[in-house]
């Protein structure tokens, strides 16, 4: 337990140091605006990937509707700041909360489903949210909302990302998180052991949706414009790809996956015709040759300090799986 705590604080310190260095580089102007917006995008994607990892990687509920939650958060917070002059942070939080409400709504009926059927149902929900936005004149219809104040700063984004990672990572490490892992490993066995599977699945969906909503709000306040089309199922796929490429079930993996995919996307922008082709080939090769993702099941820990514990955890989950 003590080891986990040291790890936790070392992680926070490293993150803060990273924040400081980037902040200095940004204020001195060494980082260009392009780099800045890429950093913001990476942060938003980390939030999305880590929150989806809780649903898919930890609880084992396959969801392809994450962009739907993001869209609810983005629209809510954008409307609040645009039309009601609500300050930035409450607007983002409100977006997250409303997305969480949707998480409960979607979680409840679809709990009867599992595997591919759940995947398709969540895809359907994501698409329905998009089509509702598309047909609502109040939120701009197909052309979406524009002129959203670009209030997302590097500091804000860093704070929200850090909170996301810390909250979700601590949740995973808690009793509740272990219950979720038990559901992933074997739902029937988990139920037999007295775990209320329904409750934990809803909790996972709600927390995941909460942070996805906040990520949506932050991204809306970064790029001025949101349209229903930017939250289609391709966006959901992109988030899944981040989680799977990083390593399902690993928070560190989700972060690495988010960074990797964002960088790949950004740098491939120079070859527009080839971008998606290279991206898809990377995807296919990755799945064939390293299906467990870049980091596999590595736990969120730093260096050798955490390795022993990670191993012990893996041993536990492996023995429970077999």
């Amino acid at each position, binding site marked *: 337990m003590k080891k986990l705590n040291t790890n936790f604080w070392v992680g926070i310190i490293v993150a803060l140091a990273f924040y400081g260095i980037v902040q200095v580089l940004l204020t001195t102007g060494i980082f260009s605006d392009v780099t800045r917006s890429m950093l913001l995008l990476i942060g938003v994607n980390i939030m999305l990937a880590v929150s989806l990892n809780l649903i*898919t990687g930890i609880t084992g509920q*396959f969801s392809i509707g994450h962009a739907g939650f993001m869209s609810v958060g983005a629209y809510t917070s954008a409307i609040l700041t645009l039309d009601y002059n609500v300050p930035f942070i409450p607007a983002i939080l409100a977006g997250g909360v409303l997305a969480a409400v949707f998480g409960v709504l979607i979680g409840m*009926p*679809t709990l*009867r*489903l599992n*595997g*591919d*059927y759940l*995947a*398709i*149902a969540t*895809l*359907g*929900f994501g*698409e*329905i949210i998009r*089509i*509702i936005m*598309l*047909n609502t004149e109040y939120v701009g219809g197909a052309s979406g909302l524009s002129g959203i104040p670009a209030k997302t700063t590097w500091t804000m984004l860093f704070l929200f990302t850090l909170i996301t990672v810390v909250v979700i990572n601590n949740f995973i490490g808690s009793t509740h998180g272990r219950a979720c892992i038990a559901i992933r490993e074997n739902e*029937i066995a988990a139920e037999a052991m007295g775990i209320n599977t329904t409750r934990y699945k809803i909790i996972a969906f709600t927390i995941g949706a909460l942070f996805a909503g906040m990520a949506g709000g932050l991204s809306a306040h970064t790029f001025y414009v949101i349209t229903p089309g930017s939250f289609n*199922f391709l966006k959901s*796929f992109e988030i*899944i*790809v981040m989680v*799977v490429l990083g390593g*399902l079930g690993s928070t560190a993996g989700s972060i690495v996956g988010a960074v990797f995919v964002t960088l790949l996307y950004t740098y491939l922008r120079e070859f527009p*015709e*080839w*971008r*998606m*082709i290279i*991206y*898809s*080939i990377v*995807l*296919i090769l990755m*799945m*064939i040759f390293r*299906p467990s993702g870049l980091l596999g099941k590595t736990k969120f820990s730093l260096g050798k300090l955490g390795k022993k514990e990670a191993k012990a955890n893996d041993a536990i989950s492996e023995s429970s799986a077999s």
Partner: protein
Amino acid sequence: MEYFIQQLINGISVGSIYALIALGYTMVYGIIKLINFAHGDVFMVGSFIGLYSAKYLTDAGFPPVVVLILSLVISMTISALLGITIERLAYKPLRKSTRIAALITAIGVSFLLEYTGVLILGPQAQGFPDIMDKKQFTLFGSSIQVESNQVMILLTTIILMIILQYIVRFTKTGKAMRAVSFDVEAARLMGINVDRTISATFAIGSALAAAAGVIFGMTYNSVDPLMGVMPGLKAFVAAVLGGIGSIPGALVGGLLLGTVETEISSLGFSSWRDGVAFAVLILILIFKPSGLFGKNVREKV
């Protein structure tokens, strides 16, 4: 009432397209439990092959009926080969890995087909040549109209369905397909070549998608490299609606979805069409997760 029947006729012709694509989904899912997201893009490729062969054959001076049949056959053959290639290169190495890895690969293949299409053909839509002159038939007096195209689409679908039923029921490959989808291991023990059977499934599914692509081109007169995405998703909805793994289910699901969509559009809610399709999907999943024709599979402990 007459308006309703008119829309029903239009719905059936849209539904036939969904049904043909849905068959590929349902067969592949039934046999290897993979949602083949690339299937909608095979439909797109089939459509383009149909377009080019129709253009070439018309220029060569063949009569319209021959052009239609030949371009269907060419498109179905090449797409079947494409399906087998995709299965061999992308899905076969993943047969033992997790479902999610296979799904991501399917998405990757889908992107690959779409954007290779954009690279080669350009992103803009292309006109599909009129293979046959369109004629209007009137039924029951004068208010209900049927286009010759619609009749032909329905005929093609029915003929293909009959061929498919024959293959699945009476040929060796068909029996092997049913055996493999029932129990892979037992089928292997009985001496069935599982890999070959899976390839055959992909070939048949892709050929049907290609046929749907040609029909789609003839109906809407416009094809583009990204056109497979929505019909692909809708066809999957149709497959789930009918009960995934069931061939008559795919047919009924496709026709039902097509009809519902057209009726919704005709009531003036055409922009809500896609939403309704997904809402139908979710309702079906919640109240009858195995679909209309699906069997309930008990979970084994």
